[in-house]
C-alpha cells in the first residue's frame, strides 16, 4: 500500500463571514518534498497554512496531514469534530514558523526551545536541555542559549523559532514568510538553516517571496491568487515559462 501524501488538500474552502478567502484548493505534498507558495498579498497563502495547522477551521472540502483528517474524525461516512485535546495532539506533528517569530519574550532562547518538550511531551528536564542545545547548535546559535529574544537580532530570533518548532520532532514544517520581517542582510542566515533542513529530508511548505530560494530548494512551486491555485509545477518551469497571465504579471512586478 502506498503511503498517503504528507499533506492532501481536496477542494478546500474557507471564508470569513461572507468573504471567501480559499475557493477550492487542491494540492498534495509528498514526504520529503519542499513546496514553495507564492502569490500576491491577500491571496490566502497564510490562511491556507493556518488551516493545515487547524489554527483556522475550513468550511468545505477535505484536508489531511499524514493520512489523518485535520480537525475531524470520520466514522461510517460521518464527520465528528475533534476535541480540543485531540487537535492539540494533531498539531504536535506539525511545526510552524511565523513571519513575526512569536518567540516567548519571557524565556531565554534555550527555554523557548525546551518549553514544548518539557510541558507537552513531559520529557525530563535534563534530556530536554541536551536536545535543545543540540537544536540551537544546528541553527548556529549555541552561544546565544541564555539570551532573551529582545537581545537577539531578527535573524537570530527566527532561527530560534525554527529550533523551537523542530524540538517537537515534527513530520511537517510550515513557514509563513519567515524572512519578510527581516533586514536584507539577515535573510541569508535564515534561508541557510531552511536549506539545511530541506537537505535533511524535512517535508516543508514555505510561503515566501524569495524566488531565488524557491528556485534552488523547492520541488514544487505553487502560485496562488484570490483563493485558488492558478499554476503549480517545478519552480524553474514556472519562473522561466509562466503560462498563466496572472503569474506573468506577478513575476514582472516582483523582479
Amino acid at each position, binding site marked *: 500500500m502506498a503511503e498517503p501524501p504528507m499533506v492532501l488538500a481536496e477542494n478546500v474552502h474557507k471564508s470569513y463571514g461572507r468573504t471567501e478567502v480559499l475557493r477550492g484548493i487542491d494540492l498534495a505534498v509528498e514526504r520529503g518534498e519542499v513546496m514553495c507558495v507564492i502569490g500576491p498579498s491577500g491571496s490566502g497563502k497564510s490562511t491556507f497554512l493556518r488551516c493545515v*495547522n487547524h*489554527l483556522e477551521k475550513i468550511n468545505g472540502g477535505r484536508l489531511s496531514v499524514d493520512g489523518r483528517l485535520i480537525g475531524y474524525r470520520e466514522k461510517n461516512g460521518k464527520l465528528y469534530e475533534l476535541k*480540543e*485535546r485531540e487537535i*492539540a*495532539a494533531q*498539531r*504536535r506533528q*506539525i*511545526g*510552524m514558523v*511565523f513571519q*513575526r517569530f*512569536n*518567540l*516567548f*519574550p*519571557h*524565556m*531565554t532562547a534555550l527555554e523557548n526551545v525546551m*518549553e*514544548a518538550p518539557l*510541558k*507537552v511531551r513531559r520529557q525530563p528536564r535534563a534530556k530536554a536541555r541536551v536536545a535543545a542545545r543540540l537544536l540551537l547548535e544546528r541553527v548556529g546559535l549555541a552561544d546565544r542559549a541564555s539570551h*532573551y*529574544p*529582545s*537581545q537577539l537580532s531578527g535573524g537570530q530570533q527566527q532561527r530560534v*523559532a525554527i529550533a*523551537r*518548532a523542530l524540538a*517537537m520532532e515534527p513530520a511537517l514544517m510550515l513557514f509563513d514568510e519567515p524572512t519578510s520581517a527581516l533586514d536584507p542582510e539577515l535573510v541569508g542566515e535564515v534561508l541557510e538553516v531552511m536549506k539545511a533542513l530541506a537537505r535533511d529530508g524535512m517535508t516543508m511548505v514555505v510561503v515566501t517571496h524569495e524566488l531565488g530560494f524557491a528556485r534552488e530548494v523547492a520541488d514544487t512551486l505553487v502560485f496562488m491568487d484570490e483563493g485558488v491555485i492558478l499554476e503549480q509545477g517545478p519552480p524553474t518551469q514556472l519562473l522561466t515559462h509562466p503560462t498563466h497571465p496572472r503569474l506573468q504579471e506577478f513575476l514582472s512586478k516582483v523582479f
Partner: protein
Amino acid sequence: MKTQENGRARPEAIRAVPVRHPGRWIAVAVLVVLTAQFAHMLFTNEQFMWAYMFENAFRPSVLEGVRTSLVLTVLAMLIGVALGVVIAVLRLSDNPVLSGVAWVYTWFFRAVPRLVLAVLFGNMGILYAQYTVGLPFTEQFADLLGVDINGTIFSIDANTLLTGFMAGLLALALSEAAYMAEIVRAGILSVDPGQAEAASALGMSKPLVMRRIVLPQAMRVIIPPTGNETIAMLKDTALVAFVPVTNELFFQLTAIGTRDFRPFPMLVAACLWYVALTSVLLVGQYFLERRFSRGTQRTARARTRLRVLGGDH
C-alpha cells in the same frame, strides 16, 4: 589626556553653560517655607500630644490590630487574585454560559459598596441559622410525594461558619475578585495573540498556553494595578469594623482615643501606621515588578549597560 582611536584624536570634552532652571529654585524656596510652617505647627500645637500618641500607638491591642489588618489584607488579596484570574479566564472563554456567569459576578460585586457587603455578610446569620449541604430541593420533593427523605449530607451552624473574621474576609475577597478579574482580563488582552498562536502550534493545550505563555506576560500589565489594589485593600480592612470585627487596626486606635477623650492623636497614629504599612507593600511591589519584566527591552538594556560598566572600561 588624548588617545588615538581610528587614527583621530578624541576632541576635548564640551564645556558649555548649562540651561538654567530658575523655576525649580523658586519651587524649592516655596516648599521650604511651607514645610517649615507645617513642622512648626506639628511641634507647637498641643493638640497633637505626641508623647501620648507614641505611648499608645504600640499597645498590644494596637499591634494585634496591625496583625489582623495585615492578615486580612494578605488573605483577601490571595483569594481575590486567584478568584479574579479564574473569573477573567471564564469571561474570555468561548463558552457563552461561563462568560455570562463571569460577567454577572463582576457586575454585582462592583456595584455594591464594600461597606454594604461587609455589613451584609456580618448579618448572614439572619438568613439561615444552619447551612446545609445536601441534595437540592429534597424537602420540597418529600412534601410533594408525602414521604420522608433526608437528603442532608452535613449541616453547620451559621455562626461557626461565618465568624466575624470570615464574614469580613469574604466580603473583601469577593469584592476584590471582581476588580482583579477586570485587571487580569486587561492583562490577558494586552498579550500579542501571536503568542498564544505560536504556543498552540507547538501542541500546547489551552490551559497550558494560558498558564505558561499568556499569564506570565500579562503579569507586567497586571502587577502595577494589583499593587494599588493591595494598598486599597489594606485601607479597606478598616471597614470590617462594621461586620463587626473589632480587633483590626483602625478600630483599636480609635477605641483608645475615644476612651481617653483624645481622639485626634490616635487618628494621627492611624495615618502613620497606614503610611508605614503601605510603604512596606510598595517595596514588595518593586521586587515583583522586577521579577516579571524579565526579557523586556528595559531589563535587557539595563543588563547590557551593567556589562559595559563592569567590563572593559
